Each structure stands twice: as C-alpha cells, then as structure tokens.
C-alpha cells in the first residue's frame, strides 16, 4: 500500500506563531484532504483540495488556515496565528489505493503553548 508522509511528527509552537505542516501525498492523486483530531476526540474534516484548489472546507477551517501545493508534490497546511485550541493531531490523506476510503499519513502532533 502506498504511503502518505507527514513532517514534522511533532511540533511545539508559541501561541500566535505561524506553523506549516507538510505532507507528501501518494503520487498522481488530484485529491488531498486535511483532518485534525483533538486528543481523545473524533477525527474532524478540515479541507479538501482538488486540482490545486480548495473544493470544500469545514467551519473549523477559518481565515487562519490555508493550504498550498507549493511545488506540485508537497502539500502544506498553514496556521497563521496559532491558538491554544489548535493543539491537535493533524492528518493529511489521499484517496485509497484500492477503495474509496482514504490513506492517512501518520500525522503531525501540534502543541501550542
């Protein structure tokens, strides 16, 4: 099964700072997704990205969030001014290899202090 790679695995940042989370998705996919999971809670949809444009976003994905595909392969999630409540695991995902579920990356654990 092809893999989705995320970096860093853990990021600690000061409140108000900008963070960029990186994802290397499975190649040759046009669909990308970002999800987050606050500790002990369910996995929440943030944004879907299709053919270099946002196709859908949730209420969580406010003006502080942005997504980019800076070099045609990597996929980034930027949080402009982090808040304490942004502390969570952030997962990127591609459509599955043999199914319509997703292949998720191992996640970036973001801790805002």
């Amino acid at each position, binding site marked *: 099964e092809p893999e*989705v790679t995320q970096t860093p695995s853990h990021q600690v940042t000061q409140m108000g700072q900008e963070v960029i989370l990186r994802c290397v998705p499975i190649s040759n996919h046009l*669909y990308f*997704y970002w*999800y987050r999971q606050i500790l*002990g*809670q*369910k*996995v*929440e*949809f943030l944004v*879907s990205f299709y053919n270099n444009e946002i196709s*859908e976003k949730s209420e969580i994905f406010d003006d502080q969030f942005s997504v980019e595909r800076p070099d045609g392969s990597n996929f980034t999630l930027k949080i402009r001014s982090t808040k304490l409540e942004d502390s969570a695991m952030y*997962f990127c*995902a591609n*459509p*599955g290899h043999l*199914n*319509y*579920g*997703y*292949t*998720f*990356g*191992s*996640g970036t654990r973001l801790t805002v202090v």
Partner: protein
Amino acid sequence: GESVGLHLPTLSVQEGDNSIINCAYSNSASDYFIWYKQESGKGPQFIIDIRSNMDKRQGQRVTVLLNKTVKHLSLQIAATQPGDSAVYFCAEKETSYDKVIFGPGTSLSVIP
C-alpha cells in the same frame, strides 16, 4: 453540539473471543461506509468498506454489517488478538468522491 472532552466507549474482550463494535450514523444520504482502526500515535488505517446496496461484507477476520433501515453499522472481529487493541471509527460518505465523515470511536481492549 460537540461534546468537549469526549470519553470514548470502551469494549473489553478476551483474546480469542469475537468482538462486535457498533455505530449509528445520521445521514440517510450516505452511500458508502468505512471502518478505520487507529492505534496510539498513528493515523486511521482502513479496515473494510461497504456500499449502501449491500448489507454484509467480509474481509480477513472482519465482517461489516449495514442496516440502512435503522442507520446502523457494525464491525465484527473474529478471534480477537492483542494486536486488535485500538480505537475503531466508523465513517461515511455521500458519494465515492465526497469527504469522509468520521463517527465517534470505540476503544477496543483485548485481554490476553
């Protein structure tokens, strides 16, 4: 609204027994359903899926049952092993290319 500090339902089973994890979904328009397994510190991992035109699908040691009448989904794990200990999430999509929406998870603990 969302619950803060949600406590996951927990299921404890003896090694070798069968496990059944249940899930209720709310969107009657959902067409595709998925079960994911999430181990500590990892991303959700696809286990098995089922389309709304089916009511049962079997994989290796796992079976998913779908009851559209009562909007209920279940995951059965045969001969549960310690490696099955994880949080299990059901998820749904309205179409094949729609976003996946996760349900609340269930923590499965296997007693050796």
